[in-house]
């Protein structure tokens, strides 16, 4: 840790892990409901559990992104954070808004639009919160001594993410128009600006961990995020096929979304190539493992499994089935959950001064959570494909088909248990690192590792 103010990142990371744990609890509630164990139905019906599960996901990822930015930006800009107080105020208010939203979901108060369930008044608070964050980071960059591409891309990603939240806040009468703009938030986030955030963080980690020349890494960053927008913006069309929008979206969305995996493939190849090229070995191997894992798994989950159902001829039958849920899990995990966990694995020893990076627990956490998540994805894939065949192609009744595929959810729950053990190990390691310490010294890649105590 080079600047004392980077310490705020620790609290964002800790909050993120807390919210992740809660997300998993709600995942299990839904998983059990699907195998008939729905004893909580009176208090937590499926729609409550689901809104809570997915909103916690989004909030913990945002928390992780903000923490990452608070760690990266001071270092890239070469100065302390503009306002540490604002950062803490912003974290606390974000958590308060999140908790209120979740309580509302349990009281049947929400907006009832997938992924954007937060009640409208709270939306405004989220906007204020994010503006405070952007101001803090922006001022730090503005007053900083350096302007790097990495920090610029990261900042642009965060800024556009905030701007794109706004189209989700219009109220319209027409369901099709409603849906049309909902995707400006949901799709343009995960298949657009969030990829900038991911690219920025990945770039920073690769520079730190592999020692490859910044110019080379950053040039590729531009090319890859260029590919992202080239394909991803018009790729929004893959959500416009069957919602009442004009027919040309079948062609536009089909062609451009089919190009989207290229950006993820580029990211994977680039990360692996840089790791290979980097001569000197950084001692924090596990952070590199998470970074490369992220690059590879995002290609598998988002690129490969996204491609699997993005062509309109296929999407006609998979649209709105468990095939989508299968893709959703591995894509969010590979691209966004893993980049946040990679950042934590890298930053934590520097924040706390404890070098717990080469332990068996660290590797165990990585492999167990990944194998668990791949298992969950596999179970959802079998369930989803069976659903498509029986319901969409043979025309059997929905509930009959759901009974048929119930056993796959037992499999999914077993894999989810494994996943949870992996996350448990990660959290345990996080706690063992202890609190951030003022004595933790910058561990510079050039020099010797000089970690406090």
């Amino acid at each position, binding site marked *: 840790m080079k600047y004392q103010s980077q310490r705020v990142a620790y609290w964002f990371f800790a909050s993120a892990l807390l919210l992740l744990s809660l997300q998993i609890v709600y995942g299990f509630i839904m998983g059990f409901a699907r195998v008939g164990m729905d004893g909580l139905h009176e208090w937590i*019906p499926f729609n409550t559990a689901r*809104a809570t599960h997915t909103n916690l996901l989004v909030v913990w990822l945002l928390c992780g992104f903000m923490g990452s930015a608070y760690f990266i930006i001071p270092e890239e800009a070469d100065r302390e954070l503009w306002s540490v107080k604002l950062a803490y105020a912003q974290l606390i208010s974000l958590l308060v808004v999140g908790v209120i939203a979740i309580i509302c979901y349990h009281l049947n108060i929400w907006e*009832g639009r997938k992924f954007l369930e937060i009640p409208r008044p709270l939306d405004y608070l989220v906007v204020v919160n994010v503006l405070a964050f952007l101001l803090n980071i922006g001022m730090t960059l503005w007053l900083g001594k350096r302007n790097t591409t990495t920090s610029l891309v990261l900042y642009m990603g965060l800024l556009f993410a905030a701007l794109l939240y706004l189209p989700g806040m219009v109220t319209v009468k027409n*369901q099709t128009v409603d849906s049309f703009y909902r995707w400006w938030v949901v799709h343009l986030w995960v298949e657009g600006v969030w990829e900038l955030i991911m690219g920025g963080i990945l770039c920073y980690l690769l520079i730190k961990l592999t020692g490859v020349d910044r110019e080379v890494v*950053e040039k590729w960053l531009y090319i890859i995020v260029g590919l992202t927008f080239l394909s991803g913006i018009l790729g929004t069309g893959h959500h416009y096929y069957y*919602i009442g929008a004009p*027919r040309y979206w079948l062609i536009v969305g089909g062609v451009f979304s089919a190009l989207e995996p290229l950006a993820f493939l580029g990211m994977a190849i680039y990360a692996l190539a840089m790791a290979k090229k980097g001569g000197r070995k950084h001692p924090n191997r596990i952070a590199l493992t998470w970074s490369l894992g992220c690059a590879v798994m995002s290609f598998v989950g988002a690129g490969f499994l996204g491609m699997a159902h993005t062509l309109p001829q296929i999407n006609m039958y998979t*649209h709105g089935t468990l095939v989508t849920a299968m893709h959703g899990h591995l894509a969010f995990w590979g691209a966004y959950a893993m980049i946040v966990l990679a950042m934590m694995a890298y930053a934590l020893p520097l924040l706390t001064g404890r070098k717990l990076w080469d332990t068996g627990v660290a590797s165990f956490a990585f492999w167990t959570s990944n194998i668990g998540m791949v298992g969950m994805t596999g179970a959802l894939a079998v369930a989803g494909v069976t659903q498509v065949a029986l319901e969409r192609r043979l*025309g059997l009744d929905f509930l009959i088909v759901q009974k048929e595929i119930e056993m796959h959810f037992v499999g999914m729950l077993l894999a989810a248990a494994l996943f949870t053990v992996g996350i448990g190990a990660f959290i345990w390691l996080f706690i063992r690192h202890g609190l951030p310490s003022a004595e933790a010294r910058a561990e510079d890649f050039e020099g010797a590792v000089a970690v406090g105590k």
Partner: protein
Amino acid sequence: MLSKSQARVFFLGGTGLFSAIFLALSVDSMRQIPKLTRQDQLTDQVVRGKRIWEDNNCMGCHTLFGEGAYYAPELTQVVARRGAPWIKLFLDDPKKMFPGQRKMVRYGFSDQQKDDIIAFLTWCGGVNLQGFPAKPPLRDLMRPTATTASADLAGQPEIFRTICVACHSVGGVGGVVGPALDEVYKRKTREEMIAWIADPQGLKPGTAMPKIEMPVERRIEIVDYLLGLARTPATAAPVQPVRPAVDPKDFE
């Protein structure tokens, strides 16, 4: 190879260009959507139904236009599939309609609210979704043999036509939740059928068939209709359940 500044131009230029195209197509979409969605039929009642849909987060279990959650059925065509009377009965007490199955919240909607929801779903069913949801391409191959002439459908009692067909078929028309009833007269006596409709759960705990309240005359009317099917032999040849492996035309 590209230099860093060229890479930056690629990024900024590409983003600008494709954002512009996207915005232009979005403007055009907004021009076309009123026609594609029959906006002229989007009445206040439909809008009220949409608000009920949102206020209760129905999308948190169901899909509409294929969007939402995967816990409960797709509802875009539900009015065509089940009919308004069935939907109203169902909303009164969802658990009763699908006993022992996956649960839906019992919201206690007023009649007005139920009408609003149905108006909304009816409007959704009329939107041009470019062919979604597709007719299941293999359904016809798997249809149970329909032995009843289609002419008999006209004689169906009101309650049978509006409620029972949501799950059962006669003459190949109707739902696929319960068995086809064309030949039920061969399997059950008159008394058995009347008793069964009165209380399916009592006779076979765990069955998916709900107890639907109706006066005994209605039950008798239904059963007599089903028994009557025995007297009207099929005019058409039974539908082949599977496609023949070899097309006879190949030998001509």
